[in-house]
């Protein structure tokens, strides 16, 4: 009995000694934490507060007036419409790409991984210009589409395509490391037990990657709704027709209509906050999944 107690006491002392020897002095610690906090306050929290303060500076009525303005409603509708197409497409593409890369061996695999990262590397403005060169009225495929009555650039299809381009790495990037860590043994086990391809995917693979997928989709959605550069190039800024929410904010701001600009901006900020919450929940769950993988 005494032996155990001494042993515990010893262990306790040792752990304290180790902590002290591996950590910094209180002054350094507070300096580091303080710097990080001040930075966060100045560059993240303060701007966010200002967005909301400005949005409500003309009172709650003016705020809702700005949001229910026909042009603003059109912008919100277009943004939601774009996201409603882009997110499901990315869901399918991301799962397919991650599946192919992590579960099969094939030639050109590393090239595919590099290509998936391309939109991260290319400036969104350039991405927009690429689509103008392809689908514009003097572009490569543009005249053909126009002659069939389909306008892509300066219209909704162009916005959707540009948004798809900038968002397509998100889901795949999130899933590839997760699926690689999990390997293929569970899928093989399911196959041996007689499960069909679809049963294997829906009952084994999908539940295992669920939180990673949600995380990827959330990031993808946030980017789809917030994308400015590429969309700005292909949109043509036609009020009520080809303005998304970020573009609408810019127009209002340039017209010195600050309250309305900030009202729309506050909507985007709320979206960002919601994304953040879901993201942190998903992150906790993914870490749990990864710990299970290691066990």
């Amino acid at each position, binding site marked *: 009995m005494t032996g155990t107690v001494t042993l515990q006491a010893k262990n306790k002392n040792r752990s304290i000694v180790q902590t002290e020897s591996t950590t910094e002095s209180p002054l350094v610690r507070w300096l580091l934490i303080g710097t990080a906090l001040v930075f966060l306050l100045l560059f993240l929290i303060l701007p966010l507060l200002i967005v909301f303060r400005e949005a409500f500076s003309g009172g709650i009525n003016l705020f809702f007036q700005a949001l229910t303005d026909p042009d603003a409603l059109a912008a919100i509708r277009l943004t939601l419409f774009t996201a409603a197409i882009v997110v499901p497409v990315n869901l399918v593409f991301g799962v397919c790409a991650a599946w192919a890369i992590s579960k099969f061996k094939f030639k050109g695999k590393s090239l595919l991984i590099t290509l998936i990262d391309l939109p991260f590397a290319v400036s969104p403005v350039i991405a927009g210009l690429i689509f103008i060169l392809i689908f514009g009225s003097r572009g490569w495929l543009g005249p053909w589409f126009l002659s069939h009555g389909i306008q892509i650039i300066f219209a909704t299809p162009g916005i959707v395509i540009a948004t798809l381009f900038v968002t397509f790495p998100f889901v795949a990037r999130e899933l590839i490391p997760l699926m690689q860590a999990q390997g293929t043994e569970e899928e093989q*086990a399911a196959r041996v*037990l*007689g499960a069909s391809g679809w049963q294997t995917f829906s*009952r084994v693979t999908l539940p295992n990657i669920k939180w990673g997928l949600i995380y990827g989709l959330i990031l993808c959605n946030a980017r789809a709704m917030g994308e400015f550069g590429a969309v700005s190039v292909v949109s043509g800024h036609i009020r009520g027709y080809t303005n998304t929410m970020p573009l609408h904010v810019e127009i209002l701001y340039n017209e010195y209509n600050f309250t309305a600009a900030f009202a729309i901006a506050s909507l985007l900020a709320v979206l960002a906050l919601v994304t953040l919450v879901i993201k942190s929940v998903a992150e906790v769950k993914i870490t749990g999944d990864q710990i299970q993988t290691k066990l």
Partner: protein
Amino acid sequence: MSIKVEHISKSFGTFKALDDVSLTIPTNKLVALLGPSGSGKTTLLRIIAGLELPDNRDSAIYFDEEDVVDRKVTDRQVGFVFQHYALFRHMTVFENIAFGLKVQPKKVRPSMEEIKTRVDELLGLIQLEGLAGRYPNQLSGGQRQRVALARALAVEPKVLLLDEPFGALDAKVRLELRRWLRKLHEEINVTSVFVTHDQEEALEVADYVVVMSNGKIEQMGTPEDVFHRPETEFVMNFIGQVNQFHGRVERGRGVFGKLVVEDDEIAGAENASARMFVRPHEIKVTSRSSGNHEVPVTVLHVHKAGPRVRLELQDDENRTLQVDMSHDDFLMTELGKNDKAYVSVQNSRIFISEEV
């Protein structure tokens, strides 16, 4: 159900994993595929399961009389147990075991009550009755492996295939589990094949041992056969400890330096180079010379910790010999470290090289 594989070859890139392998596994026997890593044993097991396909067209895999080589893994009705369990991590023990039943087509799928009865039965078989609601990460390694086994058995497979089933477990659990597997096999009577690199495991558990190396089968036989009557040098070397001597056969006698052996096996052979293999217990050590065919040696080390005494000896040609004997026999020799002694070979296997 018996398994017969014929002319199976398989390469991964330039590495030849299996080289024209043919093998018959008798009905309801427990068979071990034994070999070092890279010998092709796991590949052979995965080909039988349908998880890999053989390279060549003329290969065949028969389950009884039926050729299943073109049948997909989902239709082969085999039970497969993976080395790292491969349990479905988001499912409970119950759901894991029930999986194979639940994914069956509606026409043949048992009802929920039948599934529950079957799973409960299997939980009893693997002695994990109380743990149906646990998740795999809440189980120990040995428990996980048993769940994996129950999951494989749930669909009543015609063949049970186990890939290094105890490879990831610690020594004590391993020993327990392999005895349990032996007992289980007697109860359920399904033709079973397991892969292992642990000779002790193979010799203790299996009815037949298939020794493999470099993508080929070296020998198949009962544990006694492969241990006492090895057919090739590889089997001799791989199974059990062995002393190796290089020498020649001259006029029906084996000459290995000063060690001269007469053996019926080489009676007809004329002048050829040869290698002789002698097990540590097949060498007799005495402190006094007592006749022919003896070689003087020096005792280098004596290891007494263990069920038998192990001696390390050196002869005057600087060859090291491993010998083991019972503690009683060792006391009789009255030997100690650095003493002089004499050895004679009681039993040996001599392999003659093709003469150049």
